[in-house]
């Protein structure tokens, strides 16, 4: 593959971005593609270390991730970003900058995310212990026209991963997965046919 592309997962905290993005990455790697995952939580410990959760800092964080995705994409890597990225304008800015950009919206009801609360942060936000928490005390702007919408409250992890992969195939970013041309038995049969003809 000469050019890569960017798969951008957006959605509330605990909406399944990290889980599904890792599954998608694994599938693409199996197909021999070069893949890099930029997970929001991880990026905030290095590339965006020190940034807070004000609108300005959030925008800077998302632009930085977008910039790295752009560099990777243009060098033949599939860049997968998994970040809340709550503001539509910045996501759209990244889409414009990157070009080959597939937006995946992890749509999950807030109640379900609160129930999941893997990191215990919703609890703190609801108790007012942390401020500017998306969905509780900060806005989340839904994408208007994402390439994929995952109903992560209803779908299984596998279903969500498949939805993303099918869309990438449909958009011809990746070739459709096919069964191999031959089963082992068929391969033997054809090899024999070619051997009998003196062709192999």
């Amino acid at each position, binding site marked *: 593959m000469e050019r890569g592309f960017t798969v951008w997962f957006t959605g509330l905290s605990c909406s399944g971005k990290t889980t599904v993005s890792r599954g998608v990455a694994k599938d693409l790697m199996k197909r021999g593609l070069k893949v890099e995952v930029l997970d929001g939580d991880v990026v905030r410990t290095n590339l965006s270390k020190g940034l807070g959760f004000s609108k300005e800092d959030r925008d800077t964080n998302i632009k930085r991730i977008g910039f790295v995705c752009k560099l990777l994409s243009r060098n033949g890597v599939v860049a997968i970003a998994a970040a809340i990225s709550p503001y539509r304008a910045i996501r759209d800015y990244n889409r414009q900058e990157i070009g080959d950009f597939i937006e995946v919206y992890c749509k999950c009801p807030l109640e379900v995310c609160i129930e999941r609360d893997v990191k215990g942060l919703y609890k703190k936000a609801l108790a007012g212990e942390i401020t500017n928490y998306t969905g509780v005390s900060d806005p989340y702007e839904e994408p208007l026209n994402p390439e994929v919408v995952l109903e992560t409250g209803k779908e299984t992890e596998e279903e969500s991963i498949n939805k993303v992969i099918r869309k990438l195939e449909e958009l011809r970013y990746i070739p459709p997965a*096919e069964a191999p*041309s*031959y089963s082992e038995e*068929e*391969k033997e*049969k*054809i*090899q*024999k*046919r*070619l051997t*009998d*003809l*003196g*062709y*192999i």
Partner: protein
Amino acid sequence: MGLFDRLRFKDRRVLVVGLDGVPFSLLKALSAEGKLPNWAKLLESGSFKRMNSVHPCVSSVAWATYMTGKNPGKHNIYGFVDRFPGSMDVFIPTSRDMAGETLWEILSQAGKRVVVINVPVTFPPREVNGILISGFLCPNIDKIAYPKEQASVLREMGYRIDVDAWQARNSLDRFLEDLHLTLDKRIEAMFHFLEREEWDFFQIHIMETDRINHFLWGLWEEGDPQYGPEFIKYYQKIDAFLGQINAGLEEDTQLIVLSDHGFCGMKKEVFLNYWLQREGWLKFREKAPKSVKDIHQESKVYSLIPGRIYVNLAGREFSGSVRFPDEYERIRGEVKEALLGMRDPDSGEMIIEKVLKREELYHGLHYNEGPDLVAIPHNGYDLKGNLDKKELTYKGPLVGMHTYDDAFFYIRDVDIRRGNNQFGVMDVMPTILKLIGVPPPEDLDGQALL
């Protein structure tokens, strides 16, 4: 082509009959002897030219070149067997490995309807606007067709994918019986689709001519009293078939008949990997190597059928040890020189006519997948890739082999402006696009003959 020609050719339909491995010289001789009356009649109005094939000269490479209009460096089919250098796993290249769009895919996109039957390297069948019945690399009739439902029509008909070539080693009579029945079924399938389907482009491929040539050519050439006449009889059946097609053609339909390579008698099979071992360029890790996967890291060179020579290159081959570029170039030079000096141990005749470097033959995105050298033998010596042979040459049941410069191209009612061997199999596809009035893609290597 002038304006009037363009008008004349616009919106024509084209029917192609592919006769695998039929030499220009054979058709010319047999029709001159009055043995092929229908063919002789076709020759009265049309161009019949001797055409070049491709290197290496095998059907999968030649038909891939035909259907893409591109050199193997672009379409990525280099033989009936290939290897992934990174693992040295061996595989059979299929339509999925063939890069680029085919003639029928381009026509389909232009809204033309196509029917394609039995062309090599069309398995698994890729989508077309129409019907595609793939060829002898298909293991099972259920998987042969696009759309899939057409397979049941063929099954009911008793359609046969290919002959059983093993029979030729035991009983030539049974083999001949099989050849006739398979051809009959092929023709039956062709007329089934020809009569029922709408089409702008129709191609039928006859594989059986290649098969009879492999096992009976030598007998016919030597004047065998039993099988010589059987050989001619078979060609007369093909001749009658061509007559039947020609008689039924409508005014707006252009008939093309072609082969992909020529044929000549085979004196001996030549085992290049045995020779490479003997000369110290190839070593195996196993006593009885099963595939090129078993080659030793110290090997410099190995070969795949027919005459494809690969350097065991560090960074490319799994067990590669030859350094690029200095050692690579030195080894290619040494192997080339040694090959050109190879002689038949019995007769003392030279075996190799020339050795071409890959940059002399290929270009394109899949250039790196191609062989580093291609050895081209003198007629009569067929280069094989077996790994377990203990002698350089062998005379077996195969009595015919492919030739590069004796394929043929025929087009009815049209003068083509190139002389014999002034064009090749890759020029046919742009010619057909021009006849039908569909613009060719920009990256073709072939050029229209009109």
